Structures are given as structure tokens and as C-alpha cells.
């Protein structure tokens, strides 16, 4: 068996991928406490049936989220006429240095 298959089997068996067997559910529940927060349709699950199957309209990755946050920070700075925060200046310098190489 290849190392790749062994790694994937290991992730699967410890419940780190979607658990698909009783044993994997057990492993998953050992290390992940169920969410206390109520899912969106908690108060009226029948809404799921009225809505039917849904499709995604937009996917935001963490990278996009952090980029959007930075853009928003820059917008706020520009609106207030303030100086740029140091961490943004550092990031821009690092980006310029990387691009120059």
C-alpha cells in the first residue's frame, strides 16, 4: 500500500475526514464536541422541505476573507485620512520584495 493511501486511511480512521463508519464516528466524537449552537433551521426545520435543494451562490475562502478585510481596512484609513497601520506597510513591503525577486 502506498504512503498516500496509508496517510488517507489514517486521517479517515481518526475522523479527520468525514467519518463514514461507526468506528470513525466514535473517533470523531472523542475529539470533537458537538456544536452547542443551534443550526439555522432549528426553530422551523420544515423550511428545509419548502426550500428544496439549494445551490451555492458564492464561496468565500479564508484567503478571500482576509483579503477583503485588508481592503476594508485600507478603505477606512483612506476615508479618515490616517496613516497606514505598520502591519499593512510591512505586508506591502514584503509583497514588493517578493515581486522584485
Amino acid at each position, binding site marked *: 500500500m502506498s504512503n498516500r493511501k496509508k496517510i488517507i486511511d489514517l486521517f479517515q480512521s481518526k475522523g479527520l475526514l468525514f467519518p463514514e463508519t461507526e468506528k470513525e464516528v466514535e473517533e470523531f466524537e472523542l475529539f470533537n464536541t458537538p456544536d452547542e449552537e443551534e443550526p439555522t433551521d432549528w426553530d422551523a426545520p420544515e423550511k428545509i422541505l419548502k426550500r428544496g435543494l439549494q*445551490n451555492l451562490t458564492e464561496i468565500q475562502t479564508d484567503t478571500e476573507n482576509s483579503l477583503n478585510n485588508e481592503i476594508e481596512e485600507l478603505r477606512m484609513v483612506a476615508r479618515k485620512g490616517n496613516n497606514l497601520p505598520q502591519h499593512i506597510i510591512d505586508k506591502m513591503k514584503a509583497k514588493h520584495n517578493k515581486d522584485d525577486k
Partner: protein
Amino acid sequence: MSIEEIENILLVISDKDYDEDSAIASFTNLYRGYSKFLNSVVSRALKDRGVYDEEILNTVISNTFYKLYENPLLFSFRKEAEDDKGFKAWLSKVAKNELKRLFNEYYKDTIPLEVLSVEPAIESDDLPEEIFRNVNFKVLDDALQILSERDRHILLTLYLYYEEGKNTPSDVLKMLCKMYDTTSVNIRKIKERSEKKIVDYFTKNTQLKPLKYVK
């Protein structure tokens, strides 16, 4: 819930054409019994792949329960089942397939497909089975943490689509290229590099007892 309770609920739902009110009441019970479990499975999976957002989480859970309502008798407990874990595993599997379907659907119009070359195998010697047997959850989790966030997300997303003996579907590679603004060659390199790091970490952090000390 007990096995009998779940089986009764699924039967009542399957009778929805004759008694819709009871079917909806049973569906509500089942949703309240298992939506928190499914929520934690899906939100963990999404966070691990760096695509956590409320819309995806809610859509996967909503569609999973909708599919259950439409075809409640697709699931049945095995004879030896002692508790509801088999049902949880089935829900999780439906949610996994649903997540993959939603990703494919979302990206199919935005990513042109092309034929991709065969993936190379991991460039490392096969490790003994014992090393993998000795890896516990902590070592596994720590190994993941040594990867950068992006590499971890890419690796776990590729594993979501892993099928033995098959290459990663080209549309999945394209999807990752779009998500991380990189090329398919880089995605493959990231995967190989990450797997090598994990294998090295296992080797260094898994204690194997020499046979002469084993009683």
C-alpha cells in the same frame, strides 16, 4: 436516539404521501436529534479546507436533510448495530457527497476543463505499517499543524476527492487553482511536499520499540 426510534421516524417519513403532518413532525424530531452532530462534522471539514462560510455550511446541512426526507428508506441499520452511530456515519457520508456536488456545481461554469497528466506518486520510500499503526490522534493533528494553512487546506480538499487507483479529477484541481490563485503543477507540488512532511513527521515522532525489548 435509539435504533427503534430512528427506524420508526424513517418509516413515518416514508409514508409522507398519506400523512404529511406526521412526516413533518418526525422530520423535525430527527433534525433536532442530529443536526448539531452534522453541523460539527461539516463545519470542521470546511474549516480544515479553508472555505468556511455560513452559506456553505447551511446549504450542505439543509440539502442533506432534504435528501433524507425525500428518500428515508435509503438508510437501514445493519443487523449487529448497537446504537445510532451507523446512522450518523450515513448522514456524514451523504453530507460529504453533497459538499462535493455543490463544489462541482459551483465551479463547473467558472473553470474550463482540460486533460491533466498523471499524478506522480509520493517521492518517499514506503514506510513500515507499524509506523502508521503507532500514530495517534495527537501526532496526526500535530503533523497537520506543521503545514502552512494553505497547504493544509489544499491537501485535505484533495483527500476529500481521493479514490483509490484514480487521479484527482481535473475539475477539482482547477477548482483549487481558482481558490488559491495558483497552477495545477503547484497544487501537485504542494500535495507531494505536504505528504512528505507528514511522513517525515510520523517517522520522527512515532516510537517503535525494537523487537528485542518487546515482551
